[in-house]
């Protein structure tokens, strides 16, 4: 029900945004690296990604207040028309392209496919494009980023945390429309980004991590860069070569309807991570 309302609300936005986009993004039009949004420095709340534990028991991941020093990010998700040019140049894998309108987000892409596109467009434009980190995506997604902290549960009983997660996932429902919609269909957020948390989830560069919190020490106990953080209507973690997310088996609720991406133009380091580093000031390597 909630989802249906959201789509309905988004549909109202279509009338305004589509005519503009239709002229901007005709099929086969050149990539528009200029169509980016520059976000001013700001502080924002960020629910840390990954699995956190204390004393070996899973806990709620911390809600951090972090400061980003500014970010330049694509207004739209990369479209099929744009991705097709990378395929034509032989720099991206020959993925299936939609029949008909090309001004729809390119979906069915893995993290590797998205990264190939970033490499290609960086070379093409001379600017440094890459996938956003999860912190950067959350910053740009603003009010559309979902903070899905799980309720605190009895850590001695693994079933309680598990049931709670199941309830949360089951409550998500599935998107009413599964097929990728023309760019702009899901409206623009407060930062000027289109289609954030619509029916296309976006790859980030952030690796899956496990962290343990003991006292004020936060220790990364493992990092798995074969699994990346994927963002959209909910946050999830995906193996990097997945193009078509599936649920089923022991998983419940809807997996991401589609996997796509948008890129940031940025220095090689995450602006947000830098900000954390600047604020925290006490990062250490080793031990």
């Amino acid at each position, binding site marked *: 029900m909630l989802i249906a309302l959201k789509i309905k609300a988004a549909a109202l936005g279509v009338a305004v945004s589509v005519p503009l986009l239709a002229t901007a993004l005709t099929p086969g039009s050149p990539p528009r690296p200029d169509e980016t949004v520059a976000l001013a420095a700001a502080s924002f709340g960020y629910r840390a990604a990954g699995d956190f534990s204390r004393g070996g028991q899973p806990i709620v991941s911390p809600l*951090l207040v972090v400061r980003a020093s500014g970010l330049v990010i694509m207004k739209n998700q990369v479209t099929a028309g744009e991705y097709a040019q990378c395929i034509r140049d032989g720099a991206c894998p020959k993925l299936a392209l939609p029949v008909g309108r090309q001004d729809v987000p390119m979906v069915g892409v893995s993290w590797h496919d998205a990264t190939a596109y970033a490499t290609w467009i960086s070379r093409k434009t001379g600017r440094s494009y890459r996938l956003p980190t999860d912190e950067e995506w959350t910053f740009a997604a603003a009010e559309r980023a979902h903070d899905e902290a799980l309720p605190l549960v009895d850590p001695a009983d693994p079933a309680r945390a598990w049931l709670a997660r199941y309830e949360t996932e089951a409550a998500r429902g599935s998107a009413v429309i599964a097929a990728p919609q023309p760019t702009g269909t899901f409206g623009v957020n407060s930062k000027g980004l289109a289609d954030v948390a619509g029916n296309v989830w976006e790859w980030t560069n952030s690796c899956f991590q496990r962290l343990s919190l003991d006292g004020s020490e936060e220790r990364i106990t493992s990092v798995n860069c074969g699994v990346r953080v994927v963002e959209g209507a909910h946050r999830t973690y995906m193996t990097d070569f997945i193009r078509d997310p599936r649920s089923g088996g022991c998983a419940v609720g809807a997996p991401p309807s589609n996997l796509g991406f948008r890129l940031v133009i940025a220095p090689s380091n995450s602006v947000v991570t830098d900000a954390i580093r600047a604020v925290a000031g006490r990062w250490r390597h080793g031990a």
Partner: protein
Amino acid sequence: MLTRRTALKGVAIAAVMSWAPITLADELKLPREHVDLVAPPFVHRHEQATKAGPKIIEFRLTVHEKQVVIDDAGTKMWAMTYNGSMPGPMMVVHEGDYIELTLVNPETNTMPHNIDLHAATGGLGGGALTHVNPGEQTVLRFKATRPGVFIYHCAPEGMIPWHVVSGMHGAVMVLPRDGLKDGDGKPLHYDKVFYIGENDFYIPKDENGKYKSYDSIGESYSDTMDVMRKLIPTHVVFEGKVGALTGKNALTANVGETVLIVHSEANRDTRPHIIGGHGDYVWETGKFNNPPERDLETWFVRGGSAAAALYTFREPGIYAYVNHNLIEAVELGATAHIKVDGKWNDDLMKSISPPGPIPPAKLGAVTSGGATIAR
């Protein structure tokens, strides 16, 4: 390893952390035994019946992702394995024992793995509690409450079938404490165990119909999924490879020896048959609280289960142990051979007249169209 001191001064932690006392890892006061696992078709040493009380039996499974050759033509597949073998090793315990399993996912792997043990109760068979990323390990303890042979397999969310048909399955045998029995309560014994794990493989082909190979396991994923979704395997094999149990790899036994053949298939139905033999006692569904069926010719192993068949060899020679869908046995690979030594028993079988020319017709008889007509 990166240590980050979460500076509470600057980075506010708004969430309230739960704090629980660390529970003691081992509150069970039972004797422990560590067992080194053995690659199939063989099984680690074990007692068939035991007078000892319950124990905690420790096993260790290490996941290996590796490229393997699965047929004589050199077809390559990216396998995911427990301890490097397909199937994974069989773990044998007795009813009431605790299995304490260490699951290791080495840093050299690329994917998360876990384990769902059909012998275990709760927690998705352990799948919910054993998700390990490369570079991690986990220890799961569960109580073996039901006697029987049970499969285990990898079950990562969203990728279960792919991991299973890439080789991640094995078996647990939970023996009754007083051993196996026939339907009348008479004890049954075996001299050896063969553990046969059947795999169905789905190898993609290129536009010329040749099997494709891939530089990494990730690259093989989407093409393999396309073949899997058509449900027609390209290979159906025992022990991970066409010919893994034939020729110089054939199994051996002697006349008079009793063999327990455990057969598992984690994904697809199969129907073992011993060509020239039988199942003397067969637990077709694999669970020892049910009386075994007797004298079977072929038994049905439901996909996602294991069966156990006890057979005493009575004649020497070569026995073929097949999946009696003969297309799968002969064309796709599901054949094993058992070489049996011993003395031939004429009472059971005797060649009265060896194959030779058809003898001439009797005097006065006329043959017509292959039929002999007496005049």
